């Protein structure tokens, strides 16, 4: 059976032994001795003049009894326990996948193994599970080999920004059946509610990094701007430069007070498809680089067959959207603005459309509240202020998906088309001139969302700047071949259909491309930047350790107390008494 100490602090009592030795050597200070034979002693050469303050420790019964008393005290204070041979436990280690952990990865790799070895000693058998708080990531290790777990830990790196780790902890807790513990390894010191133990090997760090960027075109010149923030508590001066291709600009100086944010920027060279702004490296290098590509949105061809106020609204709206081209032929358009006849029947259209009621169509009187359905196009928009007295006279059909209601009548809905099942048309079932729709933000937001959705679904090449882990919709023609992901020019992996449906930008700042079929067929080119304020603020990181409490519980569950505890207690009382008696006799 393994030996454990419930109170290892008690082992400090062993310091009593050197203390005893010191007392026994130092207390024997020079004794005053009257001598009549000093003349004999004077003729004898001393063996040591220098060390007369120290006396060699002389073995004596009181001394040995005192040693035994110290050992007994240490034994009792340390509270030894014996691990039961049949004991077993489950330990689930959850690694915080936040990118801020990358600043403390070395400290975690150094500090975690000793703690886990200590946990391993608490039971005869330990079932290990290593997961990360990224629920999409696979289990890193599961088994009884702590060495294999630690090797898996060596190869792990955090990938997520700020995220909710509660689901991961709930999952981990569900894995611990019966006796065990969940250890959440993070870099923040905020206490966790509930059962999981928390370990943090982090400490507050200064950090300066990018928190955002924008690219604007003005007077034919493309300029980039970036926000740089000092997340630390002390002012910092640093340098930054722009890397274009293989060349670099002259370093620029930048001084930021604690918590200050400044804007830096420059011209995006016309011949450069991409550039990278780089700050002086610090403890958290993830936000020290800003990869930017020259934005190239998908061109959207729009045909306006609607007239009247609706056309004016559409024109004004399209003026504010980039890469929109107005065409006269609906057959060549990607999006159509049109009026929907009252007797509309599902027909074959070549593109998605935004429909308004036909002019002069009588409607129905409306009563009741304006209510929006739960849908991406109308999410978080307020329609209550829409003043609309009657419908546009469009009769709802089976398959229509209502977005906004007033009373029992659908005011805005999506209409499915047989030819374009994936691209339903947006239908406004009220006369725009008779309402205040053009003046409420929800109306404009809905239109823009719909237009962007239509643009997303176009299988055309584009270039954009994204943030890490940003979901980027990919529209492609499956007939043109499979998709491949290239990060910084290197082919990383072919994308599966599932990855294509929900594609997310890489976890770290980089340039990446998605090609289809041949490498020359670039479907998407993007620069990925890290701009998570919560993760970059390393000043709030700190040490934490609540595992100690769980260790005590596990120890008590898995082990038995020392059966001779009473004997040691008795000895603890008897030995000092015996030492005192012995010392009195020897005087």
């Amino acid at each position, binding site marked *: 059976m393994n030996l454990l100490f419930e109170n290892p602090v008690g082992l400090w009592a062993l310091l009593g032994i050197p203390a005893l030795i010191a007392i026994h050597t130092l207390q*024997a*200070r*020079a*004794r*005053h*001795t*009257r*001598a*009549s*034979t*000093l*003349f*004999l*002693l*004077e*003729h*004898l050469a*001393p*063996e*040591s003049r220098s*060390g*007369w*303050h120290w*006396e*060699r420790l*002389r073995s004596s019964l009181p001394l040995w009894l005192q040693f035994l008393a110290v050992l007994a005290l240490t034994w009792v204070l340390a509270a030894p326990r014996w691990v039961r041979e049949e004991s077993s436990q489950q330990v689930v280690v959850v690694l915080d996948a936040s990118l801020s952990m990358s600043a403390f990865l070395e400290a975690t790799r150094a500090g975690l193994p000793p703690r886990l070895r200590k946990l391993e000693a608490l039971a005869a058998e330990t079932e290990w599970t290593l997961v990360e708080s990224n629920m999409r990531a696979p289990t890193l290790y599961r088994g009884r080999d702590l060495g294999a777990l630690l090797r898996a830990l060596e190869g792990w790196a955090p990938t997520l920004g700020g995220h909710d780790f509660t689901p991961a902890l709930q999952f981990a807790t569900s894995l611990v059946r019966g006796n065990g513990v969940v250890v959440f390894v993070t870099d923040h010191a905020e206490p966790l509610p509930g059962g999981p133990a928390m370990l943090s090997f982090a400490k507050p760090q200064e950090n300066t990094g990018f928190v955002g960027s924008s690219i604007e075109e003005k007077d034919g010149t493309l300029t980039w701007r970036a926000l740089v923030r000092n997340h630390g508590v002390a002012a910092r001066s640093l340098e930054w430069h722009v890397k274009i291709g293989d060349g670099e600009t002259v370093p620029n100086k930048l001084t930021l007070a604690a918590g200050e944010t400044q804007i830096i920027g420059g011209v995006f060279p016309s011949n450069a498809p991409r550039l990278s702004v780089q700050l002086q490296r610090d403890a958290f290098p993830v936000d020290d680089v800003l990869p930017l590509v020259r934005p190239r949105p998908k061109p959207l061809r729009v045909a306006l067959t609607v007239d009247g106020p609706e056309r004016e609204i559409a024109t004004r709206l399209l003026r504010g959207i980039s890469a929109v081209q107005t065409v006269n032929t609906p057959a060549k358009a990607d999006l159509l603005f049109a009026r929907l006849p009252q007797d509309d029947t599902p027909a074959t259209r070549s593109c998605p459309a935004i429909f308004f009621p036909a002019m002069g169509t009588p409607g129905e009187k409306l009563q009741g509240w304006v209510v929006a359905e739960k849908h991406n196009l109308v999410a978080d928009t307020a329609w209550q202020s829409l003043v609309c007295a009657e419908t546009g006279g469009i009769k709802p059909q089976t398959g229509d998906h209502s977005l906004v209601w007033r009373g029992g009548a659908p005011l805005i809905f999506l209409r499915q088309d047989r030819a374009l099942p994936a691209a339903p048309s947006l239908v406004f079932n009220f006369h725009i001139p008779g309402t205040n729709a053009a003046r409420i933000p929800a109306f404009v937001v809905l239109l823009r969302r719909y237009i962007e959705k239509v643009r997303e679904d176009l299988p055309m090449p584009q270039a954009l700047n994204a943030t890490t882990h940003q979901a980027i919709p990919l529209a492609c023609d499956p007939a043109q071949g499979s998709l491949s992901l290239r990060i910084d020019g290197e082919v990383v992996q072919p994308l599966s259909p599932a990855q294509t449906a929900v594609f997310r930008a890489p976890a770290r700042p980089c340039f990446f491309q998605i090609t289809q079929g041949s490498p020359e067929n670039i479907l998407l080119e993007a620069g990925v930047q890290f701009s998570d304020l919560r993760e970059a603020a390393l000043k709030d990181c700190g040490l934490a350790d609540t595992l100690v409490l769980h260790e005590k519980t596990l120890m008590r569950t898995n082990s038995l107390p020392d059966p001779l505890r009473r004997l040691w207690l008795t000895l603890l009382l008897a030995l000092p008494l015996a030492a005192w008696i012995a010392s009195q006799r020897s005087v």
Partner: protein
Amino acid sequence: MAWRGLHGQFASMGTGSSLDFQDHRPYFPGDDPRHINWQAYARTGSYTMKLYRQEVSPRVDLFVDISPSMFLVPEKRARVLAVVVFCAESALRLGASLQVHAAHGSHVEFVPVERLLCAEEEPWQKRLPGKTAEHGLALATAPFRHGSLRVLVSDLLFPGGSDALRPLAAGQGRGVVLVPWCALEAAPGWAGNHYFEDVESGNRERRRVTPSLLRRYEDAYARHFGTWRDAARRHGVRFARVCAEGDFIQMLRQEALPAGAISPG
């Protein structure tokens, strides 16, 4: 157990007119014709003198070392006093002429016998001025009487030479040295750091005593008294150490009696 006998019965070292035959020697003019050995003259034809042991009234000079080392511990103090009183009583019972001197270094003081035997106070309660004991006792200047029995009571804790005890045997005297000692001197059991104070000089010295040093000290102590013993043997002085611990009579029997320093009465 002492120097026993009545007045006139104590044999001198010289020749005299007692009945105890001692030796023969040739006749020299001026010799007492009564002591001519006529039988020998009849056999040899030459005058031969018969020598008889001289019969004297004994003189005892008691010389007491009163240096501070003699009173190191109460046991030794008591034993010194006992030895001195023993010697004085023995001398008086013998009917000897007793003279007592106390000495400290070079200073010697006459001590009246009455004061010596007065139990009320120590005769040497008042310390004598004198040099430290390292210079030894001034035996050479001691007022020993001619032909006296010289009894030196001293712990001899000072460096001694081969001739240091010569005065005890000079002037046809006989010497006896009684050396009180205590276990604290012979086997002090020192260990560790000590702040030694010399009882003679008052000098102080810090010293760490290791078992090795203690062993060498004990060897030096034994050699020291071996030297004294040799010196006594060289001059025909009876030498005996008297331990301060234990029964006094028993201690006398241990060494003084076998050494002939005293004889059973």
